[in-house]
């Protein structure tokens, strides 16, 4: 069983966001970059499957700038066996452009399962996974909280607003990992040492036969980015008299919110 795990590198979730000088991206000065949190679930699942089967590769694929190398190293330290880094300015690419890059890489690799995260934290698109599956002509299941691997097929449990869907797919298939799928491991010293011996294969768009125009800002372009409009300050009341406070909340709910 060979798995591909698509990972993206994103600002740590604690980051204070500042808008960059171009007015349409964030200022990356001082930002700590990490593996996108949902991609950690994706990686862990692939590594677990490899451990259970005792065979196969877990190949990490990332399209991103030079700095993304540290995220790839981190994945190798946590159990991935191979890595391919397509170097490019992924923030300027639209989701279908990213999917095209990933599809071009994955087509040339053996793959039974392709894993992505439920969403790339930051851009918060949730688009690349199903787009990639479509380009590869394989089935996809999003928001997966449990996965069972059978013979030539998988059973994926998908979380919806109100229920859990159980979906059976023939392989190859693409799975978008949701929190709850597993508990991602931390990198061990041994893993970090072993990862150092693995060469990261690096590629350019041209190597993949793709033109800039296929990938960058072709269909969707970010034209502006701004901080949220400040909300007018709310009202704070003292709750040391609980009954008075309760009455004031009820008045607010009734008169201003019209909750009842």
């Amino acid at each position, binding site marked *: 069983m060979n798995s591909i795990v698509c990972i993206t590198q994103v*600002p740590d*979730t604690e980051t204070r*966001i500042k*808008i960059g000088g171009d007015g349409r991206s*964030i200022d990356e000065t001082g930002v700590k970059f990490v593996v996108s949190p949902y991609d950690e679930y994706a990686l862990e699942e692939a590594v677990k499957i490899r451990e259970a089967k005792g065979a196969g590769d877990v190949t990490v694929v990332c399209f991103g700038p030079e700095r993304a190398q540290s995220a790839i190293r981190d994945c190798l330290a946590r159990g991935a066996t191979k890595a391919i880094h397509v170097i490019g300015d992924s923030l300027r690419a639209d989701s*279908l452009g990213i999917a095209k890059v990933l599809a071009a890489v994955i087509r040339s690799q053996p793959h039974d399962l392709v894993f992505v995260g439920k969403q790339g*934290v930051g851009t*918060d698109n*949730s*688009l690349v*996974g*199903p*787009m990639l599956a*479509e380009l590869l002509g394989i*089935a996809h299941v*999003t*928001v997966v909280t449990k996965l069972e691997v059978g013979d030539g097929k998988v059973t994926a449990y*998908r*979380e*919806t*607003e*109100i*229920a*859990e*869907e159980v*979906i*059976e*797919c*023939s392989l190859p*298939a693409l799975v978008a990992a949701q*929190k*709850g799928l597993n508990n991602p491991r931390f990198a061990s010293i041994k893993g970090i040492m072993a990862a150092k011996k693995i060469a990261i294969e690096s590629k350019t768009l041209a190597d993949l036969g793709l033109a800039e125009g296929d990938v960058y800002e*072709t*269909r*969707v*372009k970010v*034209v*502006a*980015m*701004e901080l*949220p409009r400040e909300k007018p300050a*709310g*009202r*704070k*009341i*003292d*709750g*040391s008299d*609980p*009954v008075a*406070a*309760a009455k004031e*909340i009820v008045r*607010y*709910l*009734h008169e*201003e*919110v019209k*909750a*009842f």
Partner: protein
Amino acid sequence: MADVLVICEVKDGKLKKSSREALTIGRQLAAAAGGSLNAFACGSSAAAAAAEAGSFGVATLHVAGDAALDAYASEHWTSAAKFAVEASSAAIVVMSATSAGRDLAPRLGARLGAGVASDVVALEWADGKLRARRPVYSGKAFATVEIGSNPAIATCRANAFPAEATGAGACEVSNLAWSAGDTKAKLVAVNVPETTEVSLADADVVVSGGRGLKETANYAMIHDLAHALGGATGASRAIVDDGWVDHHHQVGQTGRVVSPNLYIAIGISGAIQHLAGMSSSKHIVAINKDGEAPIFRVADLGVVGDLFQILPPLIEEIKKAKAH
């Protein structure tokens, strides 16, 4: 001129609330683009929604009535929706960002070679292009994106676009010649939790509790308050991780993003990851004993006090007020 197609979800012959919201913004876009508003619905009860669609200004409802489309299935829905996009020659395709819409839009986009903007909170037609505003970095910033492809696809965040009917109108039904082919993925079961609870995703009112509740048994107070208000129950990650409540209830960056009319946060500090899931709610009430808690920065009404003292009279007062 650009025509608009709204991909709707129909349940028992009725449009879902989220689809009514998508139709409303679809109608505004059609007016701005000088085009017509059309809709697509699928499944065996889809055609029954025609009159309701007409009341939202839909000219033609494209229907794929095959029962294979009753439950959401990505491959079937993608191929049926593509039929509708082609039949309506839509330049703008809008749907709501439900679990079906989020799954369908990107697959359809890739099939059509179209750009997609997901989870948008505003849409406009400007200079012959669809422009969308969407939260990024968990709501810590907003991006304006321009979609240059034809068609342009957008999924709308729940509650961001108020649903407004225009009155009764005639809506034509056009049956698409779609039939089910083979699929690689099959829905084998749907596990619906045995609960009478309101679902978080489309609740008008959400009441959430956090570690300030001290222990798991006290979460019952969150249920009581939510019940009194007819709302859904939510939670911070802290108490989900501690196993007090199922993770389906978690609100925040790694949980659900909600934007109800009313969000009440009880004993929740307001960490940035929690705010990411609720700060776009219309009205926010917070109860916390720490006057410096960050939750007060987003609260419209903040009550500095002990939740154990305030909740009992609050639940009583609400019941009294509702009995009137």
